[in-house]
């Protein structure tokens, strides 16, 4: 008998009517046409400072916005430190210098090699060594 009663209670609790009623109770809203009719009409007691309706105030606000924009435009752009104070400049300059020195060294070595390179040393016991490179 107890089991039957509990089953009935469970069905009643899970039905949509019961759930809607529960939700209404929780939020305090009124459902249906009856609730809309009961909604009160509010009127503003003071002017909203964010949305002024007075033309003078509107003009003044516009002027202030324009001035602010102008001041923003006139503000000098921050250029940062001069190029020679940046580490990137010195890194690139150093790289170029090292590369240039390497290229010059390699070129002189290659030119020397192309021009015959180093002449062989004079063999021991010879009366002398002559000719090009000597």
């Amino acid at each position, binding site marked *: 008998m107890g089991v039957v009663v509990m089953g009935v209670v469970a069905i009643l609790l899970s039905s949509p009517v019961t759930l809607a009623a529960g939700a209404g109770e929780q939020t305090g809203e009124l459902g249906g046409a009856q609730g809309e009719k009961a909604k009160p009409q509010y009127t503003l007691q003071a002017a909203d400072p964010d949305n002024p309706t007075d033309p003078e105030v509107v003009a003044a606000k516009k002027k202030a916005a324009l001035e602010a924009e102008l001041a923003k435009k006139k503000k000098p752009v921050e250029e940062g430190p001069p190029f020679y104070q940046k580490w990137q400049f010195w890194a690139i300059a150093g790289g170029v210098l090292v590369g240039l020195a390497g290229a010059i060294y390699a070129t002189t070595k290659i030119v020397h090699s192309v021009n015959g390179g180093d*002449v062989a040393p004079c*063999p021991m016991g010879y009366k002398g060594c002559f000719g090009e490179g000597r």
Partner: protein
Amino acid sequence: MKRLVSRALFLSLLPLAVASQGCSTYSYFDIDMKLGVDFNIVAIGRINSCHMFVTGAATDDFTLSYSACHTIDTAARDIGKIQYSTLADSGNLTFTLVLFERMESEACKLGTGAVTLGIDSGKTVAGTLTVPTLEAGCPQ
């Protein structure tokens, strides 16, 4: 950035471009200088100056040092060896050795010997130069 890369490429390829222009190598000649049988110990003692003339693919001339020209093996009649280097890579070189008695003049010549050798590019060519006959030398 692209310009920088292209410049770097140009600089790195410059040595290769220079290298592609052509390569020179030294070619060597080992000349063993000897005297003919006419040169006895007295004749060898009269030698005062040894002058070498190089003609052909290269032109040159040089005088052997005093000690080199005065330390001749009288028994073997061997003046000794010299080495000559050239950047010429083809052709022949003629080595002419002229021995003088007191001064380097036509009238004081004691002997002349020559040898012609072909250039073997980058290698050493050996040859023997002999001064065969004794000439009159300076007039008394």
